[in-house]
């Protein structure tokens, strides 16, 4: 029995509108058509009509979850054009918030994945623990999301002694809980039955389709901007790049959960570094942006965020181009789905951690 099942634009497994036409024979998936663009907001064009300072807030609103990724990529590009080196402390400050964001994003993903395969208890638990990180973000930056942390030339606020104890406690709690969740994912028989061997993305396809982030690293394709092109202070801290080989949904879950532990390590070392660096040295003033063009690369929780900025010497950028990680990863979804059953579609689709508002901008 041939049938076309529409996943989206509105579907429970998708938090955002995007359409997937699944052609099935019985329960088996034989073809997938994708249509992206339901969430287009014209942000790139809008950015040309705002000043650089305003654009930081604008690109921050490209995505609600990786709201650190886009501003950092953008400001890095602009700082490169202006030829300024931001203070060491600002690099560490950005890195701490970035890694906190990675933790909460990965926890959010793990919860959604658990909910999609039908184990809502794990979803409730994980999202409760995610609140520890969000609370710290609120204490430090003033907002749970959309931190308004960056400015051209550095950061807008400082993390001081009074923030350290709470931050360290939250990190420790999250670390402990994450170990419990890794254990749950690896040992619960029903979760294993759903995740192992489904949505397989072979390494060749991962490389051929230029996948990024945890999706690529779970297929054995080691690509991570933090290692390949170290920005911020990632080359000053010790951490491991998690690369696993199997390429199925379970591996993508494992990679993300293990990255939470690595992020916790990075934050601890960054806090140590902050204690030694002079306080208050968080930004250098940038008076004007000369004509020129540059790119900013940043490893977001979902993969590489790429910003291209062209300046013509005015207060306004002439062109801003954003490439979001999901735009690279979504090409891999049909390969994961083909041959699997309809029951695997939502979890395989969610396993790339899709962020469609980034994709469509």
């Amino acid at each position, binding site marked *: 029995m041939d049938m076309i*099942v*529409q996943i989206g634009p509105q579907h429970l497994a998708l938090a955002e509108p995007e359409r997937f036409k699944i052609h099935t024979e019985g329960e088996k998936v034989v073809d997938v058509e994708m249509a992206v663009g339901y969430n287009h907001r014209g942000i790139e064009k809008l950015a040309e009509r705002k000043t650089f300072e305003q654009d930081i807030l604008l690109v921050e609103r490209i995505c609600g979850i990786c709201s650190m990724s886009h501003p950092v990529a953008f400001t890095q590009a602009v700082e490169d054009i202006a030829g300024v080196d931001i203070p060491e402390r600002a690099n560490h400050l950005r890195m701490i918030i970035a890694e906190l964001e990675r933790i909460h994003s990965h926890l959010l993903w793990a919860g959604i994945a658990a909910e999609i395969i*039908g184990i809502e*208890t794990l979803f409730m*638990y994980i999202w409760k623990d995610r609140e520890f990180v969000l609370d710290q973000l609120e204490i430090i930056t003033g907002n749970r999301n959309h931190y308004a942390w960056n400015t051209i030339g550095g950061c807008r606020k400082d993390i001081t002694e009074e923030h350290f104890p709470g931050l360290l406690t939250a990190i420790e709690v999250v670390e402990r809980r994450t170990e419990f969740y890794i254990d749950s994912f690896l040992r619960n028989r*029903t*979760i294993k039955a759903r995740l192992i061997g489904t949505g397989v993305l072979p390494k060749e396809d991962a490389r051929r389709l230029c996948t990024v982030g945890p999706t690529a690293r779970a297929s054995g394709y080691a690509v991570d901007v933090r290692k390949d092109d170290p920005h911020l202070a990632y080359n000053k801290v010790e951490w491991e790049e998690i690369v696993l080989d199997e390429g199925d949904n379970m591996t993508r879950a494992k990679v993300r959960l293990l990255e939470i532990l690595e992020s916790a390590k990075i934050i601890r070392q960054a806090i140590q570094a902050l204690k030694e660096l002079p306080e208050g040295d968080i930004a250098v003033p940038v008076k004007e942006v000369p004509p020129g063009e540059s790119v900013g690369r940043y490893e977001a929780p979902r993969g590489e965020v790429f910003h291209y900025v062209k300046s013509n010497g005015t207060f306004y950028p002439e062109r801003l181009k954003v490439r979001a990680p999901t735009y690279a990863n979504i090409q891999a979804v049909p390969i994961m789905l083909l041959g699997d059953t*309809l029951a695997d579609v*939502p979890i395989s689709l969610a396993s790339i951690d899709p962020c469609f508002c980034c994709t469509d901008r």
Partner: protein
Amino acid sequence: MFPYRWPVLIPASAARIGDFMNLDIQPFISVLIVPGLLFTSVMAFLYAGMYRKVRARMQNRRGPPFVQPFYDFVKLLSKESIKPEKSGMLFTWAPIIALASVLIVPILFPIGGLSFAGDLIVVIYVLNISAIMLAVGGFSSGSPFGAVGGSREVTQLFAYELPLAISMVAVAVKAGSFSLTGIAEAQESSGMFFYQLPFACIAFLSIIPAKIGLQPFDIPEAEQEILGGPLVEYSGYRLAIFTFSNQVKYFVVISLAVILFFWRNWWQFLITGFLLWLLFIFIKIISARVKTDQSFVFFWQYMSILALIDLVRVVI
């Protein structure tokens, strides 16, 4: 508080009134009050309320009030019920037949219900009708999600029917009777069948999540995959009846397990039912949803063998 022996007393005193009026009204009491319509409805809402509350507490949530399923039922009755253009007459009749079929089962329970030789066979068939009606409702809704849900429901039915039948037959052979009352009486004299037929009991218990649509076997209603499957196009009073028939199924199937394997007397019947229900809520909240092929392997390869062991033991 009700009198101590109320489920037994009401039919008995009612029968006396019937004698006085020269009319046997016991069957009407059994069908309409205990253990029929009224008692079953109350128990169904209790089970459903417990399901939502216990699940919420175990997940670090507050959860809705205990009577929320009843509120939902009344609310849905007052809402508009939309019938898809493509759907047929069965779209309306499927929920009604499903509810009627599950409401027939408790009338046969040995707590003051009717009884006749061979009513176990009736129970097996009547419980299947509700599952088939869910599939029929899904198919007739004209939505691909409904159709997929319907086909999953039928596949699931095939999967768990074999161990279900084998374990029930093992119980019947052991009791020497094909009626629920006979099985209950046999257990009153020789002790619970749980001790004598442990494998058949495990097989039967493993079927319950599939029968009432809970994780790990809520494959037909998978919300994140096929948006609730057969129920996707239902709304208003049709949805209310379908949901209520599912909630009645919670009580009926659990009670059936108690009668077949854990029967002692009528009040322990109620308590054991609640305890078993707690167990299944717990299993629900710690498991993910498996896939159709995996549930097939589970039921045919493992549970059927388990049930067969006990059937062979009993027959020999």
